[in-house]
C-alpha cells in the first residue's frame, strides 16, 4: 500500500476544491454546499484513516516525504511538499475526525441561517488549510498555512458580521495572531539565513551538531512566538475568549480542537530545535504553566457557558505547552489528541444547550436541563469527567502523563501548579454542570432535546473521550509514546501514586462544586462577598484587556500623535520654510540690482579678483 502515501497529498486538496466549488458555483444552494463540504472532509477522513493504518503498522522512525521546489531565489529556497510520519498521522486523524463531526453537527445548528452556504465554504477552506499545515514538510509551507488558518479563523469568528462584537472579536483575533506570527516569521527567516534550508529533515541534521547558543536561543524564542499567538498563551491569550462570538461549532472545531492545537503541533515538530536550547524549554514550560493557572482562575467565576469552556481551553493549552517545555513532548501530543475529542464534545453539547435555550448563554439562567435534554446532559458530563481527569476516561491518562513528567523530571513547582489546576478544572466544570444541568434553578424546563443530526456527533465524541486514552496508557504499553517521540523527548515509567493523587484531587474538586452549587451547603453568595476583591479581579480577567487598551492608547495613539507633530511641524515646516526662504531671499536680493552700472562692474571685478587669487594660490601651492 505504498500508493496510499503517494496520494496523501490529496487529503488537504479535497476540502480546498470543495471550497472553490462552493465559492464559485454552489453558493446559491445551501444543501449542495453542505453536501459537497461534508463529502470532501469525509473523503479526507477515510484517506487519513488509511494513511494512519499504513503508518502505524510500520516502524516509528519511518518518514515519508515528497516535495517540489516552489520558490527558487538566490538565498531563498522554499519547497512545497508532504511529510507523513506518525506525528502527522495522529494530527490527520484528529483534524479530520473532529472536522467531519462538526460539519455534520452544523447541518442542524446552522439550519435556517442566511449564510449557510458560505459557512460550509469557510469550514472547507479551514479544513484544507489545517490539513495542509499538518502535512507540511518545511517551515515555509507551515507558515503559509498558519496564516491561512488565521484568516479562516477571522472569517468564521466574524461570521455573523452584523454584530459589532463579532466584528471586533474577529479583528482582535487576527491582530493578536499577527503579533505572534511576526515573531514566528522572524524566527523562520533567521533559520533560513543561518542554515540555508527550511526543511524539517535537513534542519534536524544540521542543528544536531550545531552548538552556537547565541544563535539558537533567539531562533527558538522567536519560533515560540507563533505558538504563543496561535495557541493563545499568556500574554497573547486575549483573543480566545472573545472568539466565542463565532458560531458554537466553529468554537468547537477551531478554538478547541484544531487551530489552537496547531501551536502545540509546531512545538512538537520543531522539538529538535527546542530540545537543543534548555533556556527556551524553561521559558516554554513557564509560559505554559502560568497560562494554565491564570486561565483556570478566571474560569472559576465566569457566567457564560462558552466563556467557561474558552478559559478551560486556554488552561489545557497551557498544560500542553508546559508539557512540551518539560521535555514530555509525547505527553503533550497525547493530551492534544484527547483534549480535541472531549473539548469539541463539550462545545458541541454547549451549542446544543444554547440552541435549545434560544441563544441564552448565561448559566444562571439555565437549570435542570437534564430533565429535558438527557443525551446532551450525559455526553456533557462524560466530557467534563474526561476533562477533569477521572479514570478511566481519556483525559485522565493524558493529564496524568503530564503530571508524571513534571514530578519525575524534577519540576516540583510545576507539578504542584499542575495539580492545583487539575483541582480547579474539576471544580469549575462541575460548577457549570450543577448550575445548568442539575441544581435548584428551574429555568431550563422549556428546553427540548436537539435533533439527531446534532446529538449523534455528541455520542460519537463521547465514545472517543472514553476510549481514546487507552492508546497512551500502560494497558497498551503506551503504544502512543512508541510512535510519537522526538530526539530530546523524555519518557517516564508509570507511577501509581501520582495517578491516585490526581484522581483524588479531581474528585475533591467535584465534591466541592457539589457542596456549593448543588446542595448549596456553602453559599456561593457569601463566598463571593468574602473574597470580593479577588472575585472582582478574576471576573474582569485580571483587567488584561483594559491594560492592553491603555497600552495601545499610550503607545500607539501617543506614537501617532508624535508622528503627527513631527509631520506637521518639522516636515511641513521644512517645506514651508524652504518656500519662505526662497521668497525672503528674492525680496532681499533684489536690492542688489540698483540700476547703477558701477555696482554691476564691481560684482564683475570682484569675481575676476577672486578667480585670479584662487588660481594664483593654486599655482603657487603646486609649485612650492
Amino acid at each position, binding site marked *: 500500500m505504498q500508493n496510499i502515501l503517494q496520494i496523501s497529498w490529496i487529503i488537504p486538496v479535497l476540502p480546498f476544491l470543495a471550497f472553490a466549488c462552493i465559492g464559485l458555483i454552489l453558493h446559491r444552494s445551501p444543501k449542495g454546499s453542505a453536501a459537497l463540504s461534508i463529502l470532501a472532509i469525509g473523503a479526507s477522513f477515510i484517506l487519513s484513516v488509511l494513511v494512519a493504518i499504513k503508518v502505524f503498522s510500520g516502524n516509528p522512525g519511518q518518514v515519508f516525504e515528497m516535495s517540489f521546489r516552489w520558490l527558487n531565489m538566490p538565498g531563498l529556497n522554499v519547497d512545497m511538499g508532504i511529510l507523513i510520519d506518525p506525528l502527522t498521522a495522529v494530527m490527520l486523524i484528529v483534524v479530520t475526525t473532529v472536522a467531519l463531526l462538526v460539519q455534520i453537527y452544523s447541518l442542524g445548528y446552522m439550519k435556517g441561517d442566511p449564510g449557510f452556504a458560505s459557512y460550509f465554504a469557510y469550514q472547507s477552506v479551514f479544513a484544507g488549510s489545517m490539513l495542509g499545515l499538518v502535512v507540511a514538510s518545511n517551515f515555509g509551507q507551515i507558515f503559509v498555512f498558519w496564516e491561512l488558518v488565521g484568516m479562516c479563523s477571522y472569517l468564521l469568528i466574524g461570521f455573523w458580521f452584523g454584530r459589532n462584537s463579532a466584528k471586533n472579536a474577529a479583528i482582535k483575533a487576527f491582530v493578536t495572531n499577527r503579533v505572534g506570527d511576526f515573531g514566528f516569521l522572524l524566527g523562520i527567516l533567521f533559520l533560513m539565513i543561518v542554515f540555508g534550508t527550511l526543511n524539517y529533515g535537513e534542519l534536524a541534521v544540521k542543528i544536531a551538531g550545531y552548538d552556537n547558543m547565541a544563535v539558537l536561543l533567539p531562533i527558538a524564542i522567536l519560533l515560540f512566538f507563533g505558538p504563543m499567538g496561535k495557541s493563545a498563551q499568556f500574554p497573547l491569550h486575549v483573543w480566545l475568549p472573545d472568539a466565542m462570538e463565532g458560531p458554537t461549532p466553529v468554537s468547537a472545531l477551531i478554538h478547541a480542537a484544531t487551530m489552537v492545537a496547531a501551536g502545540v503541533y509546531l512545538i512538537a515538530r520543531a522539538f529538535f530545535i527546542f530540545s537543543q536550547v534548555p533556556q527556551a524549554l524553561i521559558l516554554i514550560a513557564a509560559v505554559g504553566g502560568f497560562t494554565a493557572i491564570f486561565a483556570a482562575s478566571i474560569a472559576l467565576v465566569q457566567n457564560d457557558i462558552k466563556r467557561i469552556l474558552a478559559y478551560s481551553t486556554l488552561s489545557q493549552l497551557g498544560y500542553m505547552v508546559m508539557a512540551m517545555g518539560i521535555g514530555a513532548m509525547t505527553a503533550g501530543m497525547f493530551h492534544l489528541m484527547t483534549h480535541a475529542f472531549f473539548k469539541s464534545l463539550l462545545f458541541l453539547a454547549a451549542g446544543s444547550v444554547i440552541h435549545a435555550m434560544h441563544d441564552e448563554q448565561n448559566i444562571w439562567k439555565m437549570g435542570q436541563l437534564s430533565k429535558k435534554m438527557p443525551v446532551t446532559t450525559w455526553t456533557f458530563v462524560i466530557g467534563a469527567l474526561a476533562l477533569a481527569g477521572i479514570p478511566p476516561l481519556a483525559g485522565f491518562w493524558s493529564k496524568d502523563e503530564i503530571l508524571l513528567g513534571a514530578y519525575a523530571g524534577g519540576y516540583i513547582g510545576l507539578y504542584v501548579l499542575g495539580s492545583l489546576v487539575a483541582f480547579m478544572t474539576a471544580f469549575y466544570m462541575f460548577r457549570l454542570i450543577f448550575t445548568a444541568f442539575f441544581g435548584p434553578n428551574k429555568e431550563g424546563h422549556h428546553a427540548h432535546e436537539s435533533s439527531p443530526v446534532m446529538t449523534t456527533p455528541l455520542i460519537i465524541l463521547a465514545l472517543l473521550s472514553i476510549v481514546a486514552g487507552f492508546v497512551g496508557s500502560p494497558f497498551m504499553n503506551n503504544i502512543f509514546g512508541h510512535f510519537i517521540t522526538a530526539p530530546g523527548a523524555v519518557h517516564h515509567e508509570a507511577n501509581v501514586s501520582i495517578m491516585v493523587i490526581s484522581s483524588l484531587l479531581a474528585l475533591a474538586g467535584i465534591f466541592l462544586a457539589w457542596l456549593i452549587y448543588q446542595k448549596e451547603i456553602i453559599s456561593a453568595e457569601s463566598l463571593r462577598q468574602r473574597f470580593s476583591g479577588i472575585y472582582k479581579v478574576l471576573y474582569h480577567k485580571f483587567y488584561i484587556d483594559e491594560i492592553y487598551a491603555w497600552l495601545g492608547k499610550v503607545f500607539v495613539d501617543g506614537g501617532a500623535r508624535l508622528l503627527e507633530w513631527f509631520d506637521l511641524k518639522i516636515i511641513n515646516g521644512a517645506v514651508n520654510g524652504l518656500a519662505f526662504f526662497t521668497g525672503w531671499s528674492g525680496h532681499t536680493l533684489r536690492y542688489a540690482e540698483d*540700476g*547703477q*552700472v*558701477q555696482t554691476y*562692474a*564691481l560684482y564683475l*571685478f570682484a569675481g575676476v579678483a577672486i578667480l585670479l587669487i584662487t588660481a594664483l594660490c593654486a599655482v603657487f601651492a603646486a609649485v612650492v
Partner: protein
Amino acid sequence: MIGLNHYLLLATILFGIGVYGVFAKRNAVAILMSIELMLNAVNINFVAINKFIQPGNTVGQLFAIFVIVVAAAEVSVGLALIISIYRQKKSVNLSDFNLMKW
C-alpha cells in the same frame, strides 16, 4: 637691474589705479579715462614681456598696436554715446542712468 617684473609691477599698479577709478567717480567721461589707463597698463605688459622673453619676435608690439586701435575705436564710440545721452538727460552722472533698477 631693472628686470621684467618691475615693468609688470608698474603695469599692475596702473591697472589697479584704473580699476579704482571706475568705481570712485561718477562722471561717465572720467570712467572712460580710467578704462584708458587700464588699457595702457595692458600695453606695457605686452611690450615688456615681448622684449624680455622673446625679443626676436615682435608679436607683442603688434598686439599693443591692435589694442591701441581698439581703444581708439572704443573711446570714440563711447564718447559719442555719452554726448547722445547728455542730450536727453542733461547730465553725465552715472548715478542718474538707473533705468536698470528693479
